[in-house]
């Protein structure tokens, strides 16, 4: 039985990193909730966000705040263009399977393009820029991790406020609940889907920026995160923001505890098994609606 501090450290790490998982999952779930599209490039967008932050820090210097501010609009734009040119037409023609396949192909293309230009090397921000940590009673957390947590929390709250209290936010929610009814009430559902997709992508890119100082950056890193994101979305319930946020933390903690008590090599397997189990026994997740 490990010492109490080690246990608490694991839980703290889990919560902090889980907040970013939650951010990623929220992006994914909003895209699914509004237009029933499973966005397989979500992970690669995270990867692109990571490279954005990486290159900015290496080439321009400075901290994370600038890449963060750039990431939000840039990725929103990327999301909108992708939606307009690829996702929307295929969703209309081929339905859920069509978008699944086209995003799969796009994912393959993006990761390999990045690998071609930046090589497969694992990169990370030089340690002297990221090693400062904050500690209390033997439990420590790096500044980057704390920054990630705080930023994620702010973004999640801001996003929730947007969805609940603004007119566009409400229009997006009604499109998610019942597109036909929303259309009858004058909502431009095509435009709402575009905005939702753009926002989801923006959240992914931003999460990538937050992850850069903490994890290695390499072309295929997106795959790892999108799998985690799906686990979280399914755990928390498709279309549920609260579920995604809490599910993210749950996954983060589960991973850390699993690594502590079982084996590190299987860390990613926990999430996967959890994923299948939840899909089987409670497909609506902890907070989601029962329509699947």
């Amino acid at each position: 039985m490990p010492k109490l501090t080690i246990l608490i450290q694991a839980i703290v790490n889990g919560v902090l990193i889980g907040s970013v998982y939650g951010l990623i999952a929220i992006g994914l779930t909003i895209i699914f909730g509004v237009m029933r599209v499973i966005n397989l490039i979500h992970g690669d967008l995270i990867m692109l966000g990571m490279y954005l932050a990486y290159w900015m820090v290496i080439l321009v210097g400075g901290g994370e705040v600038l890449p963060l501010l750039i990431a939000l609009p840039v990725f929103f734009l990327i999301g909108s263009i992708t939606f307009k040119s690829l996702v929307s037409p295929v969703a209309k023609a081929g339905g859920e399977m069509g978008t699944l396949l086209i995003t799969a192909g796009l994912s393959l293309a993006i990761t390999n393009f990045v690998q071609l230009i930046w090589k497969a090397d694992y990169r990370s921000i030089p340690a002297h820029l990221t090693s400062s940590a904050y500690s209390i009673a033997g439990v420590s957390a790096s500044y980057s991790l704390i920054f990630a947590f705080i930023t994620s929390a702010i973004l999640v709250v801001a996003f929730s406020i947007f969805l609940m209290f603004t007119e566009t936010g409400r229009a997006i929610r009604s499109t998610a609940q019942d597109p036909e009814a929303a259309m009858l009430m004058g909502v431009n559902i095509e435009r709402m889907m575009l905005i939702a997709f753009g926002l989801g992508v923006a959240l992914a890119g931003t999460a990538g920026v937050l992850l850069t100082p903490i994890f290695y950056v390499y072309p295929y890193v997106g795959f790892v995160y999108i799998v985690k994101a799906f686990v979280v979305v399914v755990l928390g319930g498709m279309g549920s923001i609260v579920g995604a946020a809490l599910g993210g933390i749950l996954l983060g903690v589960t991973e850390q505890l699993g690594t502590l008590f079982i084996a590190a090599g299987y860390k990613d397997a926990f999430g996967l098994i959890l994923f299948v189990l939840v899909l089987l026994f409670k497909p609506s997740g902890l907070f989601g609606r029962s329509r699947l």
Partner: protein
Amino acid sequence: MESRKITLLSGIVALAILIAIPFFGPSKYVMHILILVLLNMLLGQSWNLLGGFTGQISFGHAAMYGIGAYTSTLLYLKLGLSPWIGMFLGGLLAAFYATLLGTITFRLRGPYFALSTLATAEVIRLIAQNWDTFTGGDDGLSIHFEIAPRVVEYFIILGIVIATVLVMHAISISRMGYYLSAIREDEDASRAIGIDATKFKVLTLTISAFFTGIGGSFFASYQLYFNPHVVLTVHTSMQMIFISIVGGMGTIIGPIIGAILLVPIAEIFRVVSPTANLLIYGLVIVVVMRFMPEGLVGIGKRLFKD
């Protein structure tokens, strides 16, 4: 009926050519490419039964492929069992895995099923990577001398492909074939007309897995070396999907054309840059899904209409 006769005739001609090729003394490299083409035809056909005919997209066929490869190789290395018998057992074990997977996950529809196939395939890969005492871990397994001359391997895979095509054809014109089309078009509507959709989805997955597993076993016995990154990754799965989509999902000739076209191209790129190869794969999928989801067969059909 005319087009059926044309298809039959061209099939026989193609078969004759394929059988005759080895007697013209082609180089080992050409034989290697032909074997890869046939292997990919097999994999494309098996995936297509589930994906194209029945409309269930699987991102986890690598698991069946890998199970086939590991089964026959381990049986050979540990028990001395002939790889040709091992191949059959590899197919069976893959089919068993599929039946298990299917019964558990077929409550899930469309994309959720696709994701759970991916998740379970990843678990299999992680097991293969971590259980190194049994599976050789990241280093994989190797067989230290050639199992059969290349020509023999060629005829074996050719025979398997012919058998697979015949099975696919038989299914497509049978009652089951109609049921699968209905399930693909609208699963709820198919239930409403008396089709036990779940049973047929699991059955199709099992048959598909059987042939994929055989493909994996063949690959292991032919290449004589493999590891989890070669047979169990999502890229392996994507390759099978790719062959079917580009050729034409839901047709028997689709994966055939897909394999013939794409394997040589992939081989060219593999030497130059495998990354560029995958990049092109991805772009082609995007282009095909955006502009011609019926694949090359669909384009062919449209051309012949006018």
